[in-house]
């Protein structure tokens, strides 16, 4: 999906105030072609939330378009790597760190290693090209169903599973995480690795995960949140909302919530053993590495061959760094358990 016009335009990207070298170089790649969607910045509502028009198509389109680029640079896991705080990250470490992220989440949730108690059926909600699905299926000898909005990702993920001899255990489907196509109580482990950000209705998202969880099953959500509000606050500050809006527009993200919002949703669904942790420091080393890789020859040529959506996603990395430094965005792990049958 090359966009040759980008190479000739002089216009500067609107609404970016960072002046990092990466950003100045990137601004030569052209003007913002896609119109900005008008966004409603109301606070988290508890009533049913309608997805903004075009959100699901936008998400599917983004991943249909950018999945190949991401995979060629980062491999088959589409999530952040887990680093020790302050560690320097590099391309060579990244895959190891992505695997460590999975293992840290499993350890945090105390998923049993005992063969008798290991999960036998797993759902990967927002599965990308199935990196987590394949890893978990391999680790536990379990059957894993993944769901994604992107037909391109589902196809690619199934092909990768076949190539790795995992096609009996791993199966990716096109489906909506807010309307999971599974009966109640099906899965021993319900997994969502960095997909929660895309869900326009956080309550529905968690409630579907709880519904398809078997009694006693573990639910693990690793996702981006904004900081918890102080007791005196009704919403984030205007400059914080502005920064979030710019990040969200680039990644087809609906409104964010806080870790406390997730905890409250889990409590309201009578889920047990609810725990959260802030892993922001453990993913921060990733972004400079992404920016460096985007500026390599391979990175640039890949980006230029892909569409505007992918490029815009890459260029927003400095905004993530800004949000992290301001304590606005939090990389959060949330785990809980479906109660055992009475």
């Amino acid at each position, binding site marked *: 999906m090359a966009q040759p016009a980008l190479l000739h335009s002089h216009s500067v990207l609107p609404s970016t105030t960072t002046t990092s070298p990466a950003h100045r170089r990137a601004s030569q790649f052209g003007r913002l072609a896609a119109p900005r969607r008008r966004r409603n910045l109301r606070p988290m509502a508890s009533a049913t939330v309608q997805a903004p028009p075009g959100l*699901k198509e936008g998400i599917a389109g983004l991943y249909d378009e950018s999945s190949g680029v991401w995979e060629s640079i980062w491999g088959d896991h589409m999530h952040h790597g887990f680093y020790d705080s302050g560690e320097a990250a590099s391309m060579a470490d990244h895959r190891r760190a992505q695997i460590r992220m999975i293992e840290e989440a499993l350890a945090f949730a105390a998923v049993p290693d005992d063969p008798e108690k290991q999960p*036998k*059926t797993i759902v990967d909600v927002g599965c990308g090209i199935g990196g987590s699905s394949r890893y978990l299926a391999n680790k536990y*000898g*379990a*059957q894993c*169903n993944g*769901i994604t*909005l992107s*037909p391109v990702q*589902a*196809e690619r993920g*199934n092909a990768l599973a076949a190539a790795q001899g995992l*096609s*009996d*255990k791993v*199966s*990716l*489907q*096109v*489906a*909506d995480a*807010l*309307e*999971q*196509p*599974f*009966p109640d109580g*099906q899965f021993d482990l319900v997994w969502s690795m960095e997909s929660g950000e895309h869900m326009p209705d956080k309550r529905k998202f968690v409630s579907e995960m709880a519904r398809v969880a078997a009694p006693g099953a573990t639910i693990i959500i690793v996702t981006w949140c904004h900081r918890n509000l102080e007791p005196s606050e009704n919403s984030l500050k205007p400059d914080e909302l502005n920064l979030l809006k710019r990040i969200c527009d680039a990644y087809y993200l609906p409104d964010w919530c806080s870790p406390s919002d997730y905890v409250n949703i889990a409590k309201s669904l009578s889920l047990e053993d609810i725990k959260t942790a802030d892993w922001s420091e453990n993913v921060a080393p990733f972004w400079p590495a992404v920016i460096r890789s985007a500026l390599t020859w391979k990175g640039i040529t890949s980006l230029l061959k892909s569409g505007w959506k992918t490029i815009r996603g890459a260029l927003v990395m400095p905004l993530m760094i800004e949000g992290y430094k301001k304590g606005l965005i939090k990389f959060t792990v949330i785990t809980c358990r479906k109660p055992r049958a009475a």
Partner: protein
Amino acid sequence: MRLLTHNMLASNVRGVTSGFPLKLEPVKWCTKEVELNADFIRGMLPKIDWKALVAATRALGLPELLPEEQPAEDEIFAEGAADVEGSAIRRIHHALLEIHIEEGTLVCPESSRAFPIDKGIPNMMLHEDEV
């Protein structure tokens, strides 16, 4: 799509209370050999809805593949059964894992909503008015 996957999918149309099992209408399918893993089958069997699995094999025109009633566990996992042609475990393995539906439809038993299977992937996305 394998029949193992079919056995785990349900219709999610709003208002439907019994959306399982989805009726299988295969159009194009094939078989691919997969190594038999008895432990995996042992782990999956408690989760399998036998009637739904048998119905799916019938929809594929394979009435002889599986019996109406699920065989006893000690028959399925008997010593050496995996090496015996036509044994219960081999039939179950074949049904669950070796049949690939490339094109077809999954039909909601209650609402008759048809979910397409394209390039082996079921598309379970609902339209706005079905949610």
